């Protein structure tokens, strides 16, 4: 299997079904996402199923080349892409990306989504390294959890929650993207399309005990994403933590910068033992909404009083 092949995007201006391709938004191992316009000139995001280990589109080609021996795996992956479409089609929530259409073309399949303007939480973290405020974290995640609650209510797990799959609309409202649940099944069918758990955000049971996955598995990823907001980078990966726990708990790392209650909540989500984590979105939302003993952002007054306390203790 040639590991380093990259797929060419469809060219700008290409008429794909009833959409006109404008440009590539992202290139993943499993798919390409495009910005396109429909016949009413409305922007949409189109995700093209194109696993680069199985299908290759060279320069100037439209339909990807799929080697005979990869066809079963390609078809199987397509099934999983359908799962993503099916999952999203059943969800209609402002904090979950809307799927608008699903169709077949160029020997592969496409999912049309509402195009969201804004940027990913990943990009936001990159721009504000170490300067993300507590109110922002509480706000974004409380609203995002509304969407996740809907996902879980449909008996679906996301399984790939991470800052690059959390989109911040320009109005600040977060949207959950990229349903990794779709790819969960992929592990069973040979080595070609192994699920790509993002190190740092996947829960330990995703590596070790997939039969023990549940809503708590997404909780771990939510906790790790919040941790990344504070740290400016992904936390130590769960599989590594199991071997050699080197992750500094949020409570130890930022006691002066964020409220203890928020830090506790993050550490709670990131407990290795899933039985110890919040069991449901609702439980976690309650914790994030607990604002009565929250110092939103250590103000000069807080700092001053802390300083005084220390003085007194001496």
């Amino acid at each position, binding site marked *: 299997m040639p590991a380093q092949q990259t797929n060419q995007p469809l060219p700008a201006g290409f*008429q794909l*079904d*009833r959409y006109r391709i404008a440009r590539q938004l992202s290139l993943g191992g499993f798919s390409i996402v495009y910005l396109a316009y429909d*016949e009413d000139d409305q922007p949409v995001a189109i995700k093209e199923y194109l696993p680069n280990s199985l299908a290759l589109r060279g320069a100037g080609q*439209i*339909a990807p080349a799929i080697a005979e021996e990869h066809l079963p795996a390609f*078809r199987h992956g*397509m*099934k999983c892409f*359908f799962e993503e*479409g*099916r999952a999203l*089609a*059943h*969800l*209609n929530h402002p904090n979950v990306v*809307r*799927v*608008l*259409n*699903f*169709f*077949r*073309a*160029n*020997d592969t*399949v496409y999912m049309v989504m509402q195009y969201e303007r804004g940027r990913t939480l990943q990009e936001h973290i990159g721009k504000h390294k170490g300067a993300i405020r507590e109110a922002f974290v509480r706000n974004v995640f409380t609203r995002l959890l509304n969407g996740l609650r809907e996902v879980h209510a449909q008996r679906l797990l996301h399984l790939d929650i991470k800052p690059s799959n959390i989109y911040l609309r320009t109005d600040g409202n977060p949207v959950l993207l990229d349903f990794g649940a779709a790819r969960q099944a992929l592990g069973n069918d040979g080595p070609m399309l192994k699920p790509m758990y993002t190190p740092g955000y996947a829960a330990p049971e995703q590596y070790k005990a997939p039969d023990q996955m549940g809503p708590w598995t997404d909780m771990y990823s939510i906790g790790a994403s919040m941790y990344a907001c504070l740290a400016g980078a992904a936390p130590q990966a769960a599989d590594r933590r199991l071997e050699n726990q080197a992750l500094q708990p949020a409570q130890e790392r930022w006691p002066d910068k964020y409220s203890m209650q928020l830090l506790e909540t993050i550490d709670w989500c990131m407990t290795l033992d899933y039985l110890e984590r919040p069991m449901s979105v609702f439980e976690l939302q309650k914790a994030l909404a607990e604002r009565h003993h929250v110092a939103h952002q250590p103000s000069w007054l807080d700092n001053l009083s802390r300083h005084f306390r220390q003085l007194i203790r001496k």
Partner: protein
Amino acid sequence: MKFTIYQESRIGRRRNNQDRIAHCYSRDALLTVLADGMGGHLHGEIAAQIAVQYLTEAFQREAKPRLDDPFRFLASGLENAHYAIVGYTDERNLPDAPRTTCVVCVIQDNIAYWAHAGDSRLYLLRGDRVVTRTRDHSRVQMMVDDGVLTEHEALRHPARNRVFSCLGGDVAPQIDFSRRTPLKAGDVILLCTDGFWAPLGNEALARGYATGDVTAATPAMMDCAEASAGESGDNLSVVAVHWQEGYDEDAASGVATETMPLDAHTTQMQGFSKGGGAEPDLTEDDIERAIAEIQNAINKYSK
């Protein structure tokens, strides 16, 4: 809906007719479809037959009595027709894949939607003017668009029959879609194969239909086309619709659909031959089912 429709297919000077045409309507929607099997390929007429049959059957399934989304219908209909032809090819191990052009139009709520692959054309005629027409998927059309050839020169160009998009074969078709096109009373929507448009040219064709009387104009224009093409005359086929938008209440030959039951369809096909039914293999079916299911969910949950 109120319209007059006329369709005819002629063999020209060829040994067999590889063109296929059909129309079909429910109370609220009209489908017209035309396909030109590829002469150079074996079983061209089978490909054309599969395409026309597939689209009419899909229409009968989905127009109850309206299509939820005409563009989606066109896209999935043409795509499925392509795969049905490919499936037929594989099943019989045909060495040379049958192929066909296809142009298909849906009219619903006085709005026309069409799509095509190849060089069979749709013309929207108003008065004696061509309001719009499809652009052929041919090198010759590209040369015209690039200004290298005039429309007139293109009609006689030796490569004018070479198309780069069609249904069937191992390259997925390029399908072009129209915009949502509102119709006016009196408009003529004309689907035709190159055996018809090439010998006539756009201007003659528009003039010929200026009266809107498709029932009289079509056979007369076909005579002209045949005469002009002479010995080398190709198969020629036309589906012509005179859209009346209910203005012309007592036109004797018009079709009024208001009294049709919601699930009734009227279908006219021409050039049906035996052995045309294609059975796409199971996996293809699975894919279509999955997509249909997702689309249903999208529709259901988007409300």
